[in-house]
């Protein structure tokens, strides 16, 4: 990439391939956003990363906040001073911010305030699958859904305008397939940034009087029903009296268009594309519903539009008569997981009694025959040289030596993979950011009731700042004897190495004093021990010692993420397997390094029956030299 990403250029008419998240960021820039804040989370992270490229202390402040609630608070602060502000988050992040949002809705906003939520249907890079659209309705917040790349840019601009004119926080919902897809966007102009932030005398942003403010929300939504009915984001294409109308939003729009083309049923079926999904654009949707008697709703993930349509139809039976709505409830569209083009094709085949098969039968038979046994799965695992592998190796061994069948409570981050073989399957629970410590605190207190299995909570450094501190304070206050291990790899590695308060750098490129995890833990009252997880014996001994203590313990395993370390400092060692010493599969080893330790930098060569180092993959961390029972793996120091 050149230093200045094209997305930030003020070149109206320029066409660029933009990632969905970049298009959202471009929309914010074209709308004149002045403050943007987020906490990293796939599939939303690139919005802030993109805006950060355009940041400038005088014109646009961009920050990685410590968590999503704080990010939204930061954005609200700017809005209260009259500036346009954006907060971006993934679906789980909205849950964190939701407490604030459920008050902010009543307070209203001044500068346009847009919350972009990127849902992850299918949980491709998430710990859950959640359709956040219901949460917009729950809080009386207007909801827009992006369905394409240029569309995303346009919609964010539209959301800012309406947010400001209605004094309402707006939610824009994207999904993985759009946020992480790429498509062409033709740039609009970037506005002149002007005006100073100002809080006017007499202004106040509070939810009081609550009922009046709540009433006010309903009035705004009522007004938006009409505004949305005239919105360019709700469109219909198709016959005047189609036998079926596909009502769709989000990624469903493009999948539905393609399905109609592939099935060649445009003359029979209409398509109603909805960009504004809450409140329902009643006039517009009423007209659509009058056009046909059968509707197929295509949306990701839950039946949001589907249920709202049914509610609307149910309340207006005299007007609409009998209509049939197909979708999730009827089983035509899957009710879990992300949408794919074939889901829409399949539903239409059933409803229209047409059939579609792009490939000849003979070819399909040939595929079965020719590929049988030739395509095997690729399991996920820690990267070569990952410090987490060493950390969980030490934890696993310490738990075995302790012998009391202790467990590990997991958390969100790369190290969540500790529930799988790559992390020796030690982690047994996994919920929200920071909850490893909270859950462990609930387990620790059970010691007085006869629990005799020790508990270890693991937590990443970024996760620590995000949500773990209250749980740690609670642990100290309510004395829950368990071991907290902070896996400090100096990065938000899972989402792409965003800086956090411990790294000493902001996303605007400013150097700041890093906030030390160790200092925070000490100030809470823990005796903290910091270890290098690559020193396996010391790390294992420290875990064992902590497991035996009868007070809560905090250990910090500090070692830079292997991907970062490779970029910053390169390989520390060239690793070599002494084939003479390697005993391979023999009794006494049984492929200990490749089969058990499982670093991808080590390969089992079935021909020579020896382990080897894959030079292209090995990052030279040197840890495997210490686990080889025959001392057959050697480190050569690289300058």
């Amino acid at each position, binding site marked *: 990439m050149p230093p200045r990403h094209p997305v930030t250029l003020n070149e109206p008419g320029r066409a660029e391939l933009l990632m969905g998240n970049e298009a959202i960021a471009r929309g914010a820039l074209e709308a004149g956003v002045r403050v943007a804040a987020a906490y990293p989370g796939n599939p939303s992270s690139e919005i802030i990363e993109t805006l950060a490229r355009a940041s400038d202390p005088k014109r646009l402040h961009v920050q990685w906040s410590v968590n999503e609630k704080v990010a939204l608070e930061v954005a609200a602060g700017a809005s209260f001073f009259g500036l346009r502000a954006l907060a971006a988050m993934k679906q789980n992040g909205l849950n964190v911010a939701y407490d604030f949002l459920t008050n902010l809705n009543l307070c209203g906003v001044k500068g346009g305030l847009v919350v972009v939520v990127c849902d992850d249907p299918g949980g491709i890079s998430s710990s859950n699958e959640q359709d956040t659209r219901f949460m917009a309705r729950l809080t009386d917040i207007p909801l827009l859904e992006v369905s394409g790349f240029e569309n995303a840019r346009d919609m964010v601009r539209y959301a800012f305008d309406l947010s400001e004119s209605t004094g309402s926080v707006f939610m824009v919902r994207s999904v993985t397939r759009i946020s992480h897809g790429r498509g062409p966007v033709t740039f609009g102009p970037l506005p002149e940034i002007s005006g100073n932030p100002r809080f006017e005398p007499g202004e106040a942003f509070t939810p009081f009087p609550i009922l009046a403010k709540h009433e006010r929300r309903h009035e705004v939504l009522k007004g938006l029903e009409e505004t949305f009915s005239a919105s360019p984001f709700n469109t219909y294409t198709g016959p005047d009296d189609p036998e079926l109308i596909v009502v769709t939003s989000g990624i469903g729009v493009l999948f539905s268009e393609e399905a109609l083309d592939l099935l060649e049923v445009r003359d029979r079926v209409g398509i109603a594309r909805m960009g504004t999904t809450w409140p329902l654009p009643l006039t517009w949707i009423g007209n659509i519903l009058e056009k046909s008697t059968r509707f197929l709703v295509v949306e990701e993930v839950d039946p949001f539009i589907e249920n709202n349509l049914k509610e609307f139809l149910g309340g207006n039976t005299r007007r609409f008569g009998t209509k049939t709505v197909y979708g999730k409830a009827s089983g035509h569209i899957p009710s879990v997981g992300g949408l794919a083009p074939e889901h829409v094709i399949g539903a239409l085949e059933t409803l229209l009694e047409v059939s579609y098969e792009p490939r000849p039968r003979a070819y399909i038979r040939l595929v079965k025959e020719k590929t049988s046994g030739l395509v095997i799965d690729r399991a996920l695992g820690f990267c070569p040289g990952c410090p987490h592998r060493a950390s969980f190796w030490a934890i696993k061994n310490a738990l075995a030596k302790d*012998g009391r069948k202790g467990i590990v409570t997991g958390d969100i981050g790369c190290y969540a993979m500790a529930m799988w073989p790559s992390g020796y399957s030690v982690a047994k629970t996994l919920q929200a950011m920071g909850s490893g410590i909270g859950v462990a605190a609930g387990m620790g207190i059970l010691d007085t009731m006869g629990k005799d299995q020790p508990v270890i909570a693991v937590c990443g450094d970024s996760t620590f700042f995000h949500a773990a501190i209250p749980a740690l304070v609670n642990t100290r206050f309510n004395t829950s004897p368990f071991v907290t291990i902070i896996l400090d790899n100096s990065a938000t590695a899972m989402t792409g190495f965003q800086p956090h308060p411990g790294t000493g750098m902001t996303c605007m490129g400013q150097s700041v004093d890093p906030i030390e995890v160790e200092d925070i833990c000490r100030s809470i009252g823990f005796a903290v021990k910091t270890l290098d997880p690559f020193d396996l014996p010391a790390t294992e001994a420290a875990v064992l010692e902590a497991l035996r203590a009868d007070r809560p313990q905090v250990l910090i395993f500090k070692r830079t993420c292997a991907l970062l370390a490779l970029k910053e400092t390169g390989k520390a060692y060239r690793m070599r397997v002494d084939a003479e010493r390697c005993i391979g599969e023999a*009794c*006494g*080893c049984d492929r200990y390094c490749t089969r058990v330790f499982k670093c991808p930098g080590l390969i089992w060569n079935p021909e020579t029956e020896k382990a080897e180092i894959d030079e292209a993959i090995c990052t030279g961390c040197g840890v495997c030299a210490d686990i080889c029972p025959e001392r057959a793996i050697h480190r050569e120091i690289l300058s």
Partner: protein
Amino acid sequence: MSREATSFKVLTEEIIEKGECARCGACVELCPYLSLYEGAIVYPDACDLTGGRCLSFCPKGPLDLEALARMCWNGPYEGTPLGPVSKVVMARVPGSAGAQYGGVVTALVRAAVSENGMAGALLTAWKDRAYPEGAVLDDPGDLPYHGGVHYAAGYGLAALNRFRKSNPSPLTIVGLPCQAMALRRMHALDHERNIHRNKDDLVIGLFCTWALEPRPFREEMIRRFGSRRVTRYDIPPPPANRFDVFFEDGDKAEIPLDVIRSLVNPGCRTCLDMTAEFADISVGAAEGFEGWNTVIIRTPKGAALFERLNGERIIETRALPVASLAHLSEAAAMKKKKALNALAEKDLLDNRVTLPSGTREAIFNFQPGGGK
């Protein structure tokens, strides 16, 4: 298609986790999968090999007693209470003060390690008085520290596995009956990575009715005495029914023997051997004769060593009274009977431990004073 269970799986799930482990130490420190930590075998990772040395060495592993007996005695396994006996006598070291009983084990070890080719002696001791551990000593001067009866199964053979990785020389090995049996299996196993095969070790066996399980015993001691340093333990002869603990500061404490019995290693309940039948020479206390040992000389090698000491007047001997021999045989037969019952109860007879036909009856029919 059913796969043969891995050695690791049988050893950990069928033997260790079912309370069958003798805690002899033969299976540990051969590989990264089985190691020792604070008086217990730990195994964080699973090995997936079959025919592993660990299970082949295990005295509680699949075992054909007849085959083992033919291999090391050149004779059948008959189930006699004391196993093969060349000679049984009482012996002591004249004027030995430090030794707990007759001092014969210490004397035998000292003499044995001075013989040609011997690299030293493997003994089990209480390292720092926390958990017993095996150690190989090449300097007989170190012996007094390791002397004394330890009562706990200490995984001593782990030290042998460790030692042999760098030193192939034979050793004099002092061990419990389970360890003597494990050693014979280690000497016999035909496996390309068996570092113990055909080693000319001298095995001095110790009489044993049961041994303590290290971790629970340690916990009990800490519960009673905190971190006070112990120099030795003793079980005075009946009817004392107590366990004596001697502290570094000269103090002594007593624990009821029943408390101690509850800490016995459960794997000892299925052990058929009281007098270390697979040793070259076995030594125990001579009950009723304070300061004397009972010695069972079993093999020519054991006999030669004993005769050397006798000839050099390092030890003195006397005949074991007939009543004492009968009493010893009765005790050994009782252990065999109890073990047979326990094995049957756990459904391990013929299944894990195979005895030649008629042996079971011979054991149950043993009459004190009669028989061999």
